[in-house]
Every structure is written in C-alpha cells, then in structure tokens.
C-alpha cells in the first residue's frame, strides 16, 4: 500500500509550479481577463512545449500516456495560478473521450491535440442544467452516411478558441457523444458574460449540423466517452483546480497577515485570524487525499470511481468557497477591490462550485451510490 506520489509526479508538480509562477503571474491573469477570448497564444505555446496538452493522450498518438492523477496534480497548479481554464476541457476531457473514438478520428485529432495544435472542448449542458440523461434534449437524426444534430448547449468553455466540440445528442434511446469541428456549418456561438474572468463560457447553437458516421462516439471500451463519464472527469478536474485555488488564497492571506500592521502589531498575531487560517489549512489538507484518491480510481478502476469523485467535488467546492470568503475577510478592504488580485480566485471559487454538479448534487450521489449501492446508469 502506498498513498504517495512518485518522484516523477513530484517533479511534474514542481515544474508546473515554477513554470506558472514565471509565465502566469497575477499580472498576466489580469491582462488576459481583458482580452477578447481570454486566450494567449504565447502562453499556449509555452504549455504545449512542455507536452501538457498530451498528458493523457496515449503515446501511440504522440502524447505522454499519463493518467488522471498526473492531470489532477497539474490542474491543482493551474488552479493555484488562476490560469486560463481551457486546459481541463480540452486536454483532459476531450482527450479522454477521443481515446475511444474510431481509429481514423483518433488518428487525425489526438496527435494534434497532444501537440497543442488543436484545442477541443465539451458541450455537455443545456438550459435545464439537469445533470443526467434527462438534461440532454438536443437530437441527432440519422441520414445517409452520417447524422444531423440540432440543439443548444450552454456553459461551453472556450468555444471560440476551440477547434472542435464533443457534445451529447439523443439518438433513439441512446445518447452518444458527437465530435463536431467548429467550422461545420450550422454552428453559432454566443458568449455568456461571466464574473469568472479567468475562464470563458459560451452558448453554442447546433442548427442542423451535419457530421459523418464516424463522428459518433458510442460508449465501448472507455467509460469516458459518455455524458456521465465526462461529468465525472469534469468534476474531478474542477476539484483539483479548487484545491490549488484554495491553497493559493490561504498562502496569500497568511503572507499578508505577517506584514499588515494594526494596533501596533502584525494582524497575523491576532488569534481570530490565526484560528481562521488554521481552519482553512486543515480543510484544504483534508481535501487533498480525496482528490488524489478520486483521480487514482479514475486511472485504475474507472467504473468504481464515481463515489470518490463526488466526495472530492463536494468537499473541494465547499472548502474553496469558504476559504475564499475568509481570505477576503483576512485582507480587509483591500481584498474587496478590483485592484487586488484576490477576486480572480474568489470568482473562480464561485464558478467551480457550480460547475459539473454543485455540492448538494454530489453529496446526494455519495449517499445513493456510496451508502445505498445504487448505480448511476451511464446514459
């Protein structure tokens, strides 16, 4: 039994932390926030050079062939830096789903994804925001040699910079995922204005969009080419991000408490703040094993990972939200300004809480699956 990271994993973490500290400091996050699509091609080139887009892409397709645990470690660092948020949808979710695509589709897209030449995203949710099969009302119709898709998807990350979408549509009694290149006629994209300036969300309309036969991904070998599978991976990714975000807010608050003076002494010497910080720290430290374990199960026993992922998502969302609140309070007025960097994380916490199932949704799954043994059928 071993519940620790390997040297390679530790190295990945360190490399990521150093790279992001240099390339993605708060000033960069701020600059990106005011840019058109929240995207920087030079930053993107930087992460591509490190091979991170291909982290979970099999080596045969030019990726690194690593697992979700490595991805989680990396995403934690991205969360810590409040880095732009297309990494998870593209390089974790889309890459994982495409692993079970037809050989031709996989051969033509995975290598491009792995080098960073292409960016993908997932379009899972609709207006109703129901997080199961009921929530998928968009329809696919079979035509000669392919399908016609019609529907609206909301909360699609980075739709403008992505080169393709993976989206579920109803087809008879099943709900396959469809691979849709962005340039396909019939697609219309609208930005959803969001307070979270570090991540862009869009609404994507599919109006009689035609895709060939091989662009349908039917759940086969991989559990990740389903709505439920991607929901889980998304929840895992956001959990790791929240962990890093919370950690970063705590560190900033503790540092500030050592330098800011009131009543003739550093505010960090006041016990009210010490206890707040200690509680934040403990909550964070006890979230970490949940994230690692969930990621580890996604790698080793994907069909048993769901309860662990739900535990991680529920806890990290709660912890990040409440750490964020307390971090701002520990800063006083300065923490409430636009000038100060703290609000980037604060808003990320708000968004993370809601993304891929809120804490209440996941706690319910913990009980129904973890205590009552009910299985959530993959659509």
């Amino acid at each position: 039994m071993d519940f620790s990271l390997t040297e390679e994993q530790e190295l990945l973490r360190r490399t990521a932390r150093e790279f992001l500290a240099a390339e993605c400091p708060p000033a960069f996050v701020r600059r990106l926030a005011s840019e058109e699509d929240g995207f920087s091609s030079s930053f993107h080139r930087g992460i591509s050079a490190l091979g991170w887009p291909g982290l979970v892409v099999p080596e045969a397709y030019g990726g690194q062939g690593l697992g979700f645990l490595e991805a989680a470690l990396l995403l934690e660092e991205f969360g810590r830096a409040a880095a732009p948020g297309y990494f998870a949808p593209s390089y974790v979710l889309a890459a994982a789903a495409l692993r079970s695509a037809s050989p031709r589709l996989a051969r033509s897209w995975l290598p491009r994804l792995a080098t960073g030449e292409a960016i993908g995203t997932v379009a899972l949710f609709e207006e109703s925001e129901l997080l199961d099969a009921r929530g998928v009302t968009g329809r696919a119709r079979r035509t000669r040699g392919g399908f016609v898709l019609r529907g609206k998807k909301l909360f699609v990350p980075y739709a403008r910079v992505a080169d393709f979408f993976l989206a579920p549509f109803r087809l008879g009694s099943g709900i396959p995922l469809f691979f849709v290149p962005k340039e396909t006629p019939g697609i219309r994209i609208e930005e959803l204005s969001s307070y979270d300036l570090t991540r862009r969300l869009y609404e994507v309309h599919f109006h009689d969009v035609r895709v060939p036969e091989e662009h349908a991904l039917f759940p086969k070998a991989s559990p990740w080419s389903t709505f439920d599978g991607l929901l889980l991976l998304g929840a895992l990714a956001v959990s790791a991000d929240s962990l890093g975000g919370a950690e970063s807010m705590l560190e900033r608050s503790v540092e500030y408490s050592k330098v800011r003076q009131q009543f003739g002494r550093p505010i960090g010497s006041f016990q009210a703040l010490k206890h707040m910080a200690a509680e934040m720290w403990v909550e964070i430290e006890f979230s970490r094993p949940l994230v690692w374990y969930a990621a580890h199960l996604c790698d080793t026993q994907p069909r048993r990972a769901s309860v662990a992922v739900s535990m991680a998502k529920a806890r990290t969302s709660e912890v990040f939200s409440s750490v964020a609140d307390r971090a701002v309070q520990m800063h006083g007025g300065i923490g409430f300004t636009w000038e100060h960097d703290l609000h980037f994380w604060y808003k990320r916490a708000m968004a993370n809480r809601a993304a891929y199932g809120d804490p209440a949704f996941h706690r319910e799954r913990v009980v129904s699956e973890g205590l009552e043994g009910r299985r959530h059928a993959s659509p």
Partner: protein
Amino acid sequence: MDLRDSPEERALRKKVRAWLRRNVPRELRDGPGAEYGDPARIEAAKRWQRKLYEAGYVAMGWPREYGGQGADLRTQTIVNEELVRARAPSLIGMMGIQMVGPTLIQWGTEEQKRRFLPPILTAEEIWCQGYSEPGAGSDLASLQTRAELVGDEFVVNGQKIWTSNAQFADWMFCLVRTDPEAPKHRGISYLLVDMKSPGITVRPLVQMTGDAGFNEVFFEDVRVPRKNLVGELHDGWRVANSTLLHERNMLGSATRTRQLFDRLCRLARTRERNGRKAIEDPFVRQRLGDLFARVEALRLDSYRQLSEAVRGSTRPTAASMTKLVGTELNHEICALALELLGSYAPLTRRSRRAIDRGIWAWEFQFTLGMIIGGGTSQIQKNILAERGLGMPRG
C-alpha cells in the same frame, strides 16, 4: 500510489476477519459505550484485550523482545480496519498501548522497556496519564507538582486532575517539576509512578455523562525510584511532547470515526423520521453525504501519513490536524444521530424506550470531552497557525 492489498495482505485480512467474527464479545461490541465504572466490565475488557493479544493482534508493530511482532505499519492498518469492521471495542489498555508504550520504545532504558512493555500488551497493567493539574491545563508547562531527588528516590508532592482511568490504573506516567528555578519548560521530568505507592489518594470526579471516568490524584511524599525516570532529569518536556503526539493521533483516529459513522448509517436506515426512513429525508442525506466524505478524507489522510512515515517524512503538524479534525467530526456524527432520534435523544440506557441502548447521547457528550482533552481545539489551532503556517506569536 497503490492502495491494493498484496496477496499476503489479503490473506492476513481474511484470517483476522475470520478470527474476529468468532471472538468479538457481543456485550462489548462498539464499546466502551459506558465508562469503566463497573468492575465486572473492567474485567471483561481486560479479558478481551488479553485474548486479542494472544491472537497476535495488539501493538503488532512493537519490537519482538518486548512482546510485539515488529510488524510493519501496513499490517497494523489492516488489523485496525478489520477491528472496525467487526465493531470491536476500543482497548482498555489504550493509554499504555498508544501513549506510554511508544514513548518508552523511543526514550526508555532497556530495563524500563523489558519491565513495562509486556504487561501493557496483556492488560495486566493499566496506565493513566498524570499531566493536567488544577492550574495547568492548556498551559501544561506551568505544572507545579514537585519531585525532589533524595538519594535514589524522587519524593513527589502535589496534585493531578482530570486523570482518566486512575481509579483502576496500576501505573501513571506523570510530569513533575524537578527544577523550580529553571524556565518552565526546562525544569520538568517524566516519571513512572506505581499507583499503589503509599501517599497516593485517588478521588473520582463524575463527568457530565454521570460516569466517574476521571479523577483527582493527590501525592503526599510519594516515593518513586530514580530508575523510573524516563529521559534525562529536567528534560521531561521533550518526552512529554512525544507522548502528546501519540495521544493526538489516538484521539483523532480514523478507525474510531469510521465505527461511529457506520453506526450512524445503521441508525439512519432503520429510524423513522417524519413518517419515513431517516435516510430518505433529503436534508439527512445531504448531511450524511458531507460526513461520509469527511470520514473518508480522514481515512485517506491516515494512509497518506502512513506512507510518509514509511519514507521518514512525517509532517510535524500532522498529529494536531488529525486530533482537531477527528474529534470534531466524531462529535458532529453524534449530533446528527441525536437529531434522528428526536424526542428519544436524551433517554439513557436505563430507559426501556431508549433507542440503540441510549448510546448516542452518551457518545455525544463523551466526544465533546475528547475535543477538550489532549489539548483543546483552540490549542491545536494555535499550534497549526504558529508552527505550521508561521504566523506571529503574541
């Protein structure tokens, strides 16, 4: 990362499980359940520990020459997990096994180890902890119980308080002031005191649960042989702190928490609330889901700590975190159980209407005591903020 059992571990698990299924005494299941006020219960609890020891499942990690098996941490974890599964009672010799035992292994002389360790395992000698005094609780280092070295003996005078189990303990590990002139942390020594020594008076204190679980202990010219000093003279603070770390890990133990949580789930599945099974109530489900995730986090963190210990990279503040999180979680688990019980919550086990033998109200109170004992939650937070996060003292 690899959490699977190896084939040998799987075999061990199976063997332990089978043994426990046959041997855990029904009347002690989930115990202690009530304090050890009753001599018959004490005897039963000692018999259980002895039996478990003879089966080879007590303190397996201790070196062979002192009655252990030199087993690795993983083996011990497997046995602990199986004890929880089997709803085995916690051991009456806990403070010996988990606190003074490991301290002696680290700091004791060879003679002390050979003399004191084996009877801890067999429950032939039960230990209590003489740290707190009326004037020295959170500020433990201000303790005043005096010990003067006269020839080959210490002569001890003073008073301890809140001493759990002193009413039936055979030995006490005790902090005394040997150098009143030195700064407060530097004049303390760590003694092993025979509770049958002349001059010791034990006066029971009744806890809020109604059990006489702890005591006042008075020392009047009590003679303790010099060979019962652990560590160097005046250097007891360091020894005491290593016992405190063991105590914190014991109090925050993931296995105890899991046992309580499993029991809460059994209650939620059977108990009716608002005309349906409690577990069907969405609000109860939300809270169960939250508690389950936190119980699981405690378990996984204990694996993480185990792996760190194996690599020799223990985080210095880990024990404080475990104590803080584990004891507060235990109390919250009990609080939810009380809500499920509604009007039945405060009934004692003497009432025939009591549900679950009235155990929850007792546990609810007992778990509050554990938040205070072993260093209060506030003290743990001070430690975490100052030593862990480096926030300024003052």
